[in-house]
């Protein structure tokens, strides 16, 4: 059977581990070559560790083990030039670009009055401006390719005002704005732009949100905002991957401007 994205090339940010690595592996299994970037840099403002260079190496090894090619490099989504350097090298080597997964992001949990200036700007720069940077450096390649599919990772926090995540919520809402605008602007180039909105996903990021339980305990009336209507507490990486795959492949060839929730019905309560 031919893969669902056979012969396509996918650019993925935050690809060293977590959701980004999983997208790379799944897209590779379905026939895509991969261009992978990750900042592999810790943030003073974020309490959990970011990916290491060895993690990005591991992503490369795992893609190659699936008999697909990968071009990977250290690039911070806050820096367009770093992104462009890796992406241009990747497209030169792999021939073209079809799929963009703007996935890189950080997340911290704190009450509004504990949001430092640094947390605010790091979150907005990485999660919002980073998505913008990713798409604007990639779009010329997609246009040259005659079309493509862009998927940006938003969140339930891109639809609901989750408490204790104000900078993250602001950035994830902003991603929806980028996607809606660019779905219109890029449609004439046959480029589709959609967002995915997972509920909590079991990764290093969510494991770093230990403060949330204490914050909810102090304001128990806010707890139900996090509850899903479907009987599942967190979604798996696999579930986000499957949604990204649908949006990346030609089965969704006329789907654009969609906010696709993978949230066990969290946002419809």
């Amino acid at each position, binding site marked *: *059977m031919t893969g669902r994205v056979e012969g396509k090339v996918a650019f993925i940010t935050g690809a060293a581990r977590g959701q980004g690595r999983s997208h790379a592996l799944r897209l590779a299994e379905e026939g895509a070559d991969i261009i992978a970037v990750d900042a592999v840099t810790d943030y003073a403002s974020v309490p959990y560790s970011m990916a290491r260079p060895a993690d990005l190496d591991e992503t490369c090894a795992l893609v190659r083990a699936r008999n697909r090619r990968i071009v990977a490099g250290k690039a911070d989504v806050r820096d367009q030039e770093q992104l462009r350097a890796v992406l241009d090298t990747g497209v030169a080597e792999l021939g073209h670009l079809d799929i963009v997964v703007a996935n890189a992001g950080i997340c911290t949990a704190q009450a509004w009055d504990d949001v430092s200036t640094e947390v605010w700007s790091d979150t907005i720069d990485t999660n919002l401006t980073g998505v913008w940077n990713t798409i604007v450096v990639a779009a010329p390649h997609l246009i040259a390719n005659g079309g493509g599919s862009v998927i940006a990772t938003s969140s339930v926090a891109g639809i609901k005002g989750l408490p204790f995540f104000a900078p993250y919520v602001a950035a994830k809402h902003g991603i929806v704005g980028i996607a*809606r605008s660019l*779905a*219109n602007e890029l*449609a*004439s180039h*046959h480029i*589709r732009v959609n967002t995915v909105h997972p*509920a909590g996903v079991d990764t290093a990021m969510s494991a770093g949100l230990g403060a949330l339980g204490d914050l909810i305990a102090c304001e128990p009336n806010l707890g139900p905002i996090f509850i*899903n*209507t*479907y*009987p*599942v507490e967190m*979604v798996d990486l696999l*579930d986000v991957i*499957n*949604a990204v*795959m*649908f949006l990346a492949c030609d*089965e*969704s*060839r*006329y*789907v*654009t*401007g*969609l906010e*696709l*929730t*993978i*949230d*066990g*019905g969290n*946002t*419809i*309560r």
Partner: protein
Amino acid sequence: MSADQPLEGRVALITGAARGQGRAHAVRLAEAGADIVAIDIAAPVESVPYDLASTDDLAETEKLVAAVGRRVHAVRADVRDQDALDAAVTAAIAEFGRLDVVVANAGVISYGYTWELPEQQWQDVIDINLTGIFHTVKATVPAMIAAGNGGAIVLTSSVLGFRGTTGASSYVATKHGVVGLTKSLANELGPHRIRVNSVNPSNVATEMVLNPTTLGLFRPDLEAPTPDDVKETMSAMHPMQIPWVEPVDVSNAILFLTSDDARYITGVSLPVDAGLLAR
């Protein structure tokens, strides 16, 4: 379950399955491994300004599903008739032993300014497009809950489930209603692991759109417009600049939503609209 047979061993019921989108869904879900219960009125409705499916059409759907190698149980039933639906579902479950997927697709459109609509014309659209889904849910959900296997329901809404237009208020009202029904049912059925989503297509290349009455609305300047004559007008509706999507594009979205790939996706309205709603 294999990768190209994500619905293997499952049974899918589709209303409005004799032709158009419903037939495409029946064939696509059968290709994905499901046995099919195909329901259609296969008869005219007087207030609808284009021909509805015939018994021959329903027989053709049966043949196409059988050709894919899946079992098919085709029944003539009107979604306005709860008893007929109940009987069809009971017979289908007796034959296939289970029910996992429901695609409530049957629908019609008719046109006219709201204040000029004959009462019956308004009522037919409401009865088929909205109450018909209520009946379909009533006929199927209790057995799905009792079986305890979970399941997936997809309701066919439209881009007109989010936007208005002129001359189709009954259709717009029902398709908005379908979005509300989707969200309500997703909440009610979540605890039973039954997911409920809608698809919201723009123009689909079927008889509902490509009939003389509808084509005439898009090109009032022509006496007998053909599909070719409306392409430019319809393309202008969509950022992706295509006039319509094909039935299989909606089927692919439904296959995704009903497969385990979407096992935690519920309450979503998925546009298949070449960007119309992004505008």
